[in-house]
């Protein structure tokens, strides 16, 4: 058996396997949590949390919702959403909501360590 042909075959096979597994037929996950969302959806999630906070003024509820996005500090998530929102020119009301939530989060004395639901 030719070793060089075997190696060439393996390399070609790996390339084909990766193209198939990542490009043509990637894994579709189910029952995921918000912390696995694509960046675009994560940002949008933060915007919606801010809009909801703007309505109910329930900061604890907003913290619980943001905690579902992962261990990042809540105020950092909101700041990131503001920066992204400015870049993408999202509606003014969304920016106002984000700004309001960011100010409230920054005024918290320390991280309350909220757990996701």
């Amino acid at each position, binding site marked *: 058996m030719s070793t060089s042909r075997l190696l060439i075959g393996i390399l070609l096979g790996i390339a084909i396997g990766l193209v198939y597994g990542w490009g043509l037929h990637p*894994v579709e996950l189910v029952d995921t949590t918000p912390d696995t969302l694509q960046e675009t959806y994560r940002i949008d999630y933060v915007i919606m949390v801010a809009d909801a906070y703007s309505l109910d003024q329930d900061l604890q509820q907003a913290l619980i919702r943001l905690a579902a996005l992962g261990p990042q500090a809540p105020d950092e998530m909101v700041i990131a959403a*503001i920066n992204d929102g400015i870049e993408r020119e999202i509606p003014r*009301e969304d920016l106002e909501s984000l700004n309001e939530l960011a100010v409230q989060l920054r005024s918290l004395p320390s991280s309350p360590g909220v757990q996701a639901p």
Partner: protein
Amino acid sequence: MTRRDTLSLLLGAILGIAAGVTYSWVINPLSFNETTPASLRTVYREEYVLLTALSFAKTGNLEQAQGRLAVFTDINAASELSRLAQLSLSEERPVDEARALAQLAAALSNPATPSPTAVTATPTPTGTPPSSPTPTLQPAATRVPTATPGAPFALVSSEPICDPRVSQPLLMVYVQDADGNPLPGIAVLIRWDEGQDQFFTGLKPEIGLGYGDVDITPGVVYQLELVDGQVPITGLESSPCTNELGQTYPGSIELIFQQPSP
């Protein structure tokens, strides 16, 4: 190329494909941090839909809400919103949640539906986050007219309804603005001797955007009140009806409320 070379190449390719697929599906799949809301666990999907409704209640931006719900290709968004609104009421969650869900359900069923009442402008924060540059703001989404905030609803019609096709007697409520346009998302509270219940207009858009109903029991006297109404409507009770065969059955009650002209 000899037959042996060909076999080596084929064997290597098979081994390589197996290794490549294993790596891309099991060891390092692309989508671990690249999922969409459609793959979320049910409880998070419902939270996402709720947040979409609350955001719509804040901004009135229907196009944005439709875009957010479009990722859920396996559900009827309006039906799901109505279901979640009923669930929210049954779980006695904040009324604003059910109202927002009902309003978005109605808006999706009929895009000409009046948008949520504009939210009172929030005070300008005393300071902006240190790392955020001054936002370049663009105009807010245009709102269509809606009910005059604060104006009470008045009962304009109350009639017994005899419909033999309706097996369970209903208390049917229609709510309109001053121009006669149906208004979704209006909270209706009913009380009786042993309890109370609440529902919203707009959860059955196939009947009417300003329509809501609740089952009633013959022999029980009800009191109904719109959250923004003037006075409770008392003495509501199912009346007996007679069908073509002379058989009696419990009738329903239809109430129409309208917001007076400003």
